[in-house]
């Protein structure tokens, strides 16, 4: 008995030390790349959402849930991460639908063009903060690059141990608690960098999306059907990377085949009122704050038509969202002030390296 106690105690201390070190070593994305914090923040939500966006930066930079709330009373959350590939999206959505049942799921189809994992860093940002579950393990197995291990996703310690030499004060400061950086998954950028020129898109030999992407699109569709959620496919109005007509047609055909709504916002730029000399912060890749608000306002009508209710009468929700709105406007004001003063956003131009580069 005494021996069991002794060894149990030792094991406990060891495990405690391990998890403490792990918490210290994993990147917290508090200064530097806010995109990495997106997945984690969803799990701090206290209320449910009627609309869930799923996709890559073309959703989390281009749509503002706050605008949807303020203008339409629509509660929404963006489950996006940088270059979120379609299998990331599927498993993220699956995880989400196990927690809540929205009315509408909006999926941005840009990732249909990628049939293989592209980068370890993006895998990490998409998967690290998914809570441990069978779903997560399946997600890792579907996403991991050749030299990545499942174990290092279950215990990120084994991935980030080499960050010991890069630890900063912020790693200690945010050891147990991290700030919320996004606004329901939306990352705000108020600065402007107009579109001046766009490179001519190069011709492709094969425009057909890969089978594996269709498989996951089917899975997303079936999952939504199963949960009784309407799936809306969209292509966000980002001008680059180029969205080929041949690609667009495939999505139009897919939507028609399964009776889904597919909106290519690139066809509605004038109706939305987007002006790419003021509404983008990086020459047309992403919308800035004003662009995102215009797009969200436009999309709100469509969501309303799809039957998403106005929840502004709900007191509990209103209270939660009032706080969110206040944060949102405070950050917007701060960004505009910084821009007026300095002409640029410090945060946007000085990324700190969070994921040590593979050598």
């Amino acid at each position, binding site marked *: 008995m005494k021996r069991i106690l002794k060894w149990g105690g030792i094991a406990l201390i060891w495990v405690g030390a391990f998890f403490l070190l792990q918490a210290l070593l994993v990147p917290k994305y508090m200064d530097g790349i806010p995109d990495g914090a997106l997945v984690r923040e969803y799990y701090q939500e206290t209320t449910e959402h009627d609309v869930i966006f799923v996709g890559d930066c073309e959703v989390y930079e281009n749509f503002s849930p706050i605008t949807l709330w303020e203008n339409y009373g629509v509660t929404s959350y963006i489950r996006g991460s940088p270059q979120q590939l379609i299998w990331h999206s599927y498993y993220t959505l699956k995880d989400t639908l196990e927690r809540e049942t929205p009315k509408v799921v909006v999926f941005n189809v840009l990732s249909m063009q990628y049939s293989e994992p592209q980068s370890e860093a993006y895998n990490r940002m998409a998967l690290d903060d998914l809570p441990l579950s069978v779903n997560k393990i399946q997600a890792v197995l579907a996403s991991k690059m050749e*030299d990545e*291990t499942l174990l290092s996703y279950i215990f990120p*310690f*084994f991935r980030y141990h080499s960050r010991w*030499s890069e630890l900063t004060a912020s790693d200690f400061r945010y050891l147990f608690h991290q700030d919320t950086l996004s606004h329901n998954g939306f990352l705000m950028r108020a600065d402007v960098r107009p579109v001046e020129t766009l490179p001519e898109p190069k011709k492709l030999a094969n425009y057909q999306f890969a089978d594996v992407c269709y498989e996951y699109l089917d899975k997303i569709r079936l999952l939504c059907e199963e949960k009784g959620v309407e799936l809306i496919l969209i292509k966000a109005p980002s001008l680059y990377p180029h969205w080929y007509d041949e690609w667009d047609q495939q999505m139009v055909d897919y939507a028609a085949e399964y009776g889904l709504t597919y909106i290519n916002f690139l066809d509605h730029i004038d109706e939305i009122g987007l002006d790419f000399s003021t509404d983008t912060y990086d020459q047309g890749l992403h919308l800035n704050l004003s662009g995102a608000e215009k797009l969200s306002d436009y999309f709100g009508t469509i969501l309303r038509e799809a039957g998403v209710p106005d929840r502004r009468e709900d007191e509990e929700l209103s209270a939660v969202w009032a706080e969110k709105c206040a944060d949102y406007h405070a950050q917007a004001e701060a960004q505009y002030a910084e821009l007026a003063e300095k002409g640029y956003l410090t945060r946007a131009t000085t990324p700190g390296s969070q994921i040590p580069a*593979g050598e």
Partner: protein
Amino acid sequence: MLFTSFGFILFLAILFPLYYLVPKRFQWMLLLAASYVFYAFAGWGCLIFIAVTTVTCWYASLQMDRLQKRQSAYLKARKEALTSEEKKAYKARVKKKKLGWFLAALLLNFGILAVLKYTNFAIVNINAISALFGGGQLQLVDLLLPMGISFYTFQTIGYVIDVYRGKYPPQENLPRFALFVSFFPQLVQGPISRYDDLAPHLLGEHPFDRRTVSFGLQRILWGYFKKMVVADRLLTAVTAIIGAPETYDGIFVLIGMFLYALELYADFTGGIDITIGIASTLGVPVKENFIRPYFSKNIEEYWRRWHITMGTWFRDYIFYPVSVSKPMLSISKKSRSLLGPELGKRVPVYLATLITWFATGIWHGASWNFIVWGLLNGVVIIISQECAPLYHRFHERFPRLGATFGWRLFQVVRTFWLMSALRSLDCYRDVPLTFSMVGTIFTRFSLTPLFDGSLLELGLGTGDWIVAGLGCLLMLGVSLRQRRGSVREQLERAPAAARYAVAFGLTFAVLVFGAYGVGYDASQFIYNQF
């Protein structure tokens, strides 16, 4: 399956409990199965090679033994009937047959090794000669080099030679013999064990012994520390230096030698620590391969303390036989009549030394770098033997100097740098480049790179240098403690809190500072390739 991979740890984690749960008489079978599973991870193709070596050497040894036994029985039965002439003739016939089996086993297995390891080396050289005469060029061939082939081939050949010499009877049971050839901890990088040392333990029964297992685990941990925290970290800097000789000349060559010495030591002894540690947790003692080699006071001593099992292999199976071979005896005779008894006696020894070192060199790798490296080792040993009278006279003049700490330190440092300089041959691309790089130490010497931040451009940050430095100091400290006996036994006497602190500290040092995972190349143990 690398020692440093998660897969290997998992493999051990499954094997250990099984090993002590199965009935004791099945333990060796489990080890055999585990060894083949381990080897299969290196590729199914490799299994064929180790199986061929196992079966041929086992069978040839059995045949040699049968011949010998039949001879004894035959002679015993006809003790009276045969004349001594007839006996001699019979013995000669048996000997010839025995030699046949012996040669067959040797040629086949050395042949496999030679073809797999040296074909491309031969082709490169033939091409170079052919190019001189404007001849055609042969294509290099893509050959598989089975993991650890040099190690298990040598270990097995040693066994065949021993059986041939009648040192011990052969192993009749093929699976048992297969375990001796393939025992997985030492398959990758040695030590090269002797059958009579290893087999009784391998095949014996091993009840769980807390102390041996715990000592084994400690040793494994220490090995991982050396390998993953020190060696793999330093490797980055070493690779940077030797990878860009045009940038890193002069003092960098010295720095490179120094770092490579530390890196190789940490890597190789770390690997051996893991090997011996694993074997120990299985209750199998494996011969030590290193005894603090960098504390050696001369090169001969160094080679008695570095990669010991390889050195003794070459001594027992090449140096001695070559020294007493017929051609060597006739050379000895001639040289004595030509050069007088003193020098004449030494010539054949030196010749045997050079042959042995040539073989050692080429065993290390199929390149001229290693051949020159081996021969230079031989040359240095010969020179130091030739100079022995000089040293002797020097010490007679200064009788008290030899005992001083300063003098011993000088000897140790001298030997360290001498060996490090020779070792630079296995860093640079080819022999001429190596010599010219060593030359730049004298022609382009400058101390400024030490202070102008160049060291931070070798791929290691300040933190890495500190960790590597502290790791090296720890290794030095442990070596110094070792002179007073087993460090683990000393640790055993320390208070429990201290023991756990050491275990925790080392474990987390390996986990945090170890070079593994994405961002680190899982650099293989350097000796895998031999």
